[in-house]
């Protein structure tokens, strides 16, 4: 079609611009049995550099650096050679859950993961020491690990971790000794974040940046009333637009599918659609406000009372009666909701930034009837999830957007990226709850 850049020219152009480096491997490398892997958390390359696997979502909190510091500290490796990658969700399912529940929220990435990471890294360190001792034929106790090397005090010999990694891939050490805080070189020191360079040159891969060969792009319109569904639509005009592949229903919403997202989104606007709005159509901010105020008056719960309230109020020289009202609030992450899925007969891949990869994997399994060991969820950076909203639960705990991508990829047998417009993102949030709080106080002066 006239508006299309030919695929060959497209690829040539993209390559010339250096744009094909997409930050993940396809096909993905085997997660376990990898050369230099000492355990599920870390891989030591032949050159001694260390890759730390991060089983948490990075959404601004700096978790890749914090967790890598813990591993590097306990491993006694050189910080300058440390890099990170996101842990494999698929492996977690197949391998007895080495990463536990893969869930990020509640401000507990470091507190929750720390003990396990110390143990895993110490265990790897002890095996590196044992491997060196075996090679030299000396007792392990006469060797020590230091900054990426195992050193033998008596002879002054040393071997780099990279030279030992292969031999160290032995049965685990049961109770590895942990370093004492007095020995720490990294923990407790402010270090530069590892992810900063990629976040200032545009190369950090967010969910929205994923690109796959033959990928289609989908824009979504949900019923403007929460809980409503699609009644009917006339797509004739939208289908005449350039690059548009289809207009379809997906889980009660409307999807326009095209060869780029802008075309999909423009096509969506050209669909004549009728929604079944349902009971919530009558609900608006005014109705909610009145309902909450009435509930507060009749049913409100006492959250806090200080002093002898009635007695003090009776004599107070000044009385304050204040009503605090918070509306439903969207998380409004900087990166609008998105997910990319590729469903084939025997395998599902989903790329997105998610706080709950387990939930996405479960949804993929349910929608495709494939076992969890066939599901691969690839964690990407999350753009501005605002994990700090209210109770700490972020928007990207949900799998709704991923489910749309999975359903569409299954239907079209091609990779599909679903991206919501900002308007759709704001209107279809799992909102921070509304609240109405009354505060009555008496002042004696």
């Amino acid at each position, binding site marked *: 079609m006239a*508006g299309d*850049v030919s695929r060959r020219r497209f690829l040539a152009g993209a390559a010339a611009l250096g744009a094909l480096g997409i930050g993940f491997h396809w096909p993905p490398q085997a997660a376990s049995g990898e050369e230099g892997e000492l355990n599920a958390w870390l891989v030591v390359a032949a050159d001694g550099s260390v890759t730390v696997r991060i089983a948490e979502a990075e959404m601004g909190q700096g978790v890749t650096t914090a967790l890598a510091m813990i591993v590097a500290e306990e491993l006694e490796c050189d910080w300058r050679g440390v890099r990170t990658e996101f842990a494999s969700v698929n492996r977690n399912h197949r391998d007895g859950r080495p990463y536990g529940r893969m869930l990020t929220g509640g401000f507990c990435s470091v507190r929750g993961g720390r003990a396990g990471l110390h143990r895993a890294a110490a265990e790897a360190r002890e095996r590196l020491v044992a491997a060196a001792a075996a090679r030299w034929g000396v007792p392990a106790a006469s060797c020590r690990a230091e900054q990426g090397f195992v050193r033998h005090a008596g002879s002054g010999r040393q071997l780099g971790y990279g030279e030992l990694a292969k031999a160290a891939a032995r049965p685990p050490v049961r109770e590895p000794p942990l370093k004492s805080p007095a020995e720490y070189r990294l923990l407790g020191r402010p270090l530069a974040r590892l992810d900063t*360079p990629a976040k200032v040159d545009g190369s950090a891969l967010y969910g929205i940046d994923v690109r796959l060969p033959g990928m289609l792009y989908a824009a979504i319109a949900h019923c403007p009333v929460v809980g409503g569904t699609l009644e009917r639509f006339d797509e004739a005009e939208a289908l005449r637009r350039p690059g548009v592949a289809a207009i379809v229903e997906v889980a009660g919403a409307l999807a326009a599918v095209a060869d780029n997202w802008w075309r999909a989104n423009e096509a969506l606007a050209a669909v004549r659609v009728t929604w079944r709005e349902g009971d919530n159509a009558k609900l608006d901010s005014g109705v909610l406000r009145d309902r909450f105020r009435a509930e507060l008056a009749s049913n409100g719960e006492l959250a806090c009372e200080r002093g002898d309230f009635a007695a003090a109020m009776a004599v107070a020289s000044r009385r304050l009666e204040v009503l605090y009202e918070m509306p439903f609030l969207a998380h409004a992450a900087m990166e609008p909701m998105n997910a990319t899925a590729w469903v084939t007969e025997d395998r599902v891949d989903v790329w997105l930034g998610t706080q709950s990869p387990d939930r996405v994997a479960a949804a993929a399994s349910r929608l495709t009837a494939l076992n969890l060991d066939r599901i691969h969820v690839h964690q990407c950076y999350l753009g501005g999830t605002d994990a700090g909203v209210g109770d700490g639960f972020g928007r990207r705990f949900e799998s709704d957007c991923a489910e749309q991508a999975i359903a569409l990829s299954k239907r079209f047998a091609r990779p599909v990226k679903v991206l919501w417009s900002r308007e759709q993102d704001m209107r279809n949030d799992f909102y921070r709850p509304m609240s109405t709080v009354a505060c009555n106080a008496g002042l004696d002066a």
Partner: protein
Amino acid sequence: MAEFILNGRAASIDAEAEMPLLWVLRDVLGLTGTKFGCGIAQCGACTVHVDGEAQRACMLPLAAVAGRAVTTIEGLGAGGPHPVQQAWIAEDVPQCGYCQSGQIMAVVALLAREPRPDAATVAATVDNICRCGTYPRLLRAVTRAPELLTGKAG
């Protein structure tokens, strides 16, 4: 068909004249460093340079850049980190990082016009949204950048 200079090279794009530059960059050319945040020129995540000026690519039709020079975050640091990127690294500015391509492009354009802007000028000119609230560090990096820029010149 629109022809323009992209990151120092000739580009020729066969797409609708009204297609916003943002989607030409991201979806047609695969340059995903320029981000989508709002689509209505409000957040600044999509900021690029057109003939050296900061522009929000989400509302800039392809036709409007015909014959002009466009620079994206990928082009900015093509020959090693730009002094502003270096200042960003030195101050560890990004949190989630999503807004940062746009922030950096906006700051580079500002410093080209006004090498030592005061805080009020920065706030007024670089009005890109950062949902993580990196503004204080951003300001520190902007203060540091001119030294690096001059360092490079000298």
